[in-house]
């Protein structure tokens, strides 16, 4: 069964992202919301780890959270809006929010 992992905390000084990547399955996806979009900060270690995993079409970020923080997801994550967030939640068998 596929899982959509939803992260909302900054990856700096927190290991949710790292742990999520450890147990991420081959068909699972990651959605970055809130401060978690800082993981896409160019030149940062979290961004490097994300690119290393080559998630391609399995990495998403909420557009408004990106814009609010001036983070450019180009080439790594797909920016999505809230309706697409809902569609993603339905497309995957389950959603795991890293609270």
């Amino acid at each position: 069964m596929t899982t959509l992992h939803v992260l909302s905390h900054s990856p700096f000084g927190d290991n949710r992202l790292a742990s999520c990547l450890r147990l991420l399955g081959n068909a699972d996806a990651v959605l970055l919301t809130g401060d978690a979009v800082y993981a896409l900060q160019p030149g940062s270690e979290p961004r490097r780890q994300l690119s290393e995993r080559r998630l391609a079409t399995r990495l998403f970020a909420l557009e408004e959270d990106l814009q609010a923080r001036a983070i450019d997801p180009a080439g790594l994550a797909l920016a999505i809006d809230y309706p697409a967030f809902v569609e993603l939640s339905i497309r995957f068998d389950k959603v795991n929010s890293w609270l």
Partner: protein
Amino acid sequence: MKRHRSPIGSSALGAIEMAKSLLIISRQAPWSGPGAREALDIALAGGAFDLPLGVLFLDDGVFQLQAAQQPGQLQQKNLAANLQALPMFGVDELFVSSVSLAERGMDAGNLSLAAQPLDEAELSALVDRYDQVITL
């Protein structure tokens, strides 16, 4: 107490059980906030209702399993009794990340509660097999 079949290697679980299986991932250290106790409360409540559920101790969550803790020093109630109650409530699918243990110099053979150590590949397989996942 009714025992549930292991979700590991049991693809027919959904057909056997009316209720959806639930994996609770507990990743908070025991005494710095309510996270650890709340995860445990969910597990015990679910167990009391015979829900097929498992608990995975991950990251700082493995510190909950450290033997000989004395939370009374912090005016906190010990979680150990709640942990020991899990198998009595039918929650016997208990797992722990071997990487999280190793990072913290802990030994799977020396925990306050018997939990099955899982490596990274087994972790993804575990999450995959449950119908629902909650991470606290």
